[in-house]
């Protein structure tokens, strides 16, 4: 060893970088969502899809009429196709998702285009636990109308 009163830091660095590499590789960054939702809990163990999905985020609708709906797709191509011709086409390149100003009117068209762009996509519904049933139901009916068969509703593990 060197000076005697000095500690060799090399093994420490080894460990630190090993852990660092591990966390860097396992981390998946969630895209920042503008609408914060608290999802309900269920004891389902099925995991959310990794790719090819369309997400519809529904906010808390405790204030009447102000339900916010954000639509997003994980693939760039589908996003561009889905929002083509809408006022949101400029923002379609971003990964953040698009908040619809008038979702009742705009959503069917966008979802239909998204499904046509890639019919193998699944649809994911992330609604706030305090959302009203009729809002969620309306959205589910829209999904059905554009021929999505199953919906995956995001929940958290039961505590």
């Amino acid at each position, binding site marked *: 060893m*060197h*000076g005697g009163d000095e500690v060799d*830091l*090399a093994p*420490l*660095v080894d460990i*630190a*970088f090993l*852990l*660092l590499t591990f*966390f*860097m590789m*396992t*981390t*998946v*960054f*969630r895209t920042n969502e503008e609408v914060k939702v608290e*999802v*309900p*809990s*269920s*004891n*389902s*163990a*099925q*995991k*959310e*899809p990794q790719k090819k999905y369309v997400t519809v985020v*529904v906010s808390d609708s405790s204030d009447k009429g102000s339900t916010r709906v954000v639509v997003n797709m994980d693939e760039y191509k589908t996003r561009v196709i889905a929002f083509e011709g809408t006022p949101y086409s400029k923002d379609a390149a971003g990964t953040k998702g698009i908040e619809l100003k008038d979702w009742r009117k705009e959503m069917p068209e966008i979802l239909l285009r998204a499904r046509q762009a890639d019919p193998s996509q699944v649809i*994911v519904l992330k*609604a*706030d*636990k*305090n*959302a*009203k*049933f*009729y*809002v*969620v*139901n309306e959205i*589910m*009916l829209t*999904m*059905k*109308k554009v021929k*999505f*068969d*199953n*919906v*995956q*509703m*995001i*929940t*958290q*593990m039961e505590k």
Partner: protein
Amino acid sequence: MSSAENRGREVKHKMREGKSNAQARKVRKYNEKSDETSHVDLAPMVDIAFLLLTFFMLTTSFAKPNVFQMGLPEKNDGSGKSTPVNPKFVLTIQISKTGAVFMHRGLEGPNNEPQRIKFEDVRKQVANYRKAVMDDPENAKKSDIVTVVKIDRETKYDTMIETLNEIFDGGVTKWATVELKADESEKLAALEKK
């Protein structure tokens, strides 16, 4: 500065600068070492490594959210496809505005009012009914019960998911969700007050 002569001269130089002999020796020793091994101070690197490590540790979320998969409902105006079912094998669950659960078997009638059940009992009741239907001699084909879940428009999404979760745990495979019609909703509210 590798010869012993040089080192000696250096110690003398340091001493002349006012350093004690021991201090001067230490300086000499240090210089000697850095010459031989070109030692790099790793401490800043460790700092950075741990900083990044902490960052990734804090931002990582291992538990991916779960999903609850279900078929999408049809619109409640008769436009969807319909399948004839024996009303005897239908279980209707109604959820009121406040999240109270009511259940009745078969067709609703004067002698078959929806019964209020506790949320905790939903699973058990559904499972019991399902078993009874499966064992019914009339049910020769062993067809599963059909569960209709009628939910008030003002009910929270949370209540809907939790109730559906209980129903699925009760073993139900054929089911549908519908929004309560206005008159049904009123009736249910009245029942709840009783």
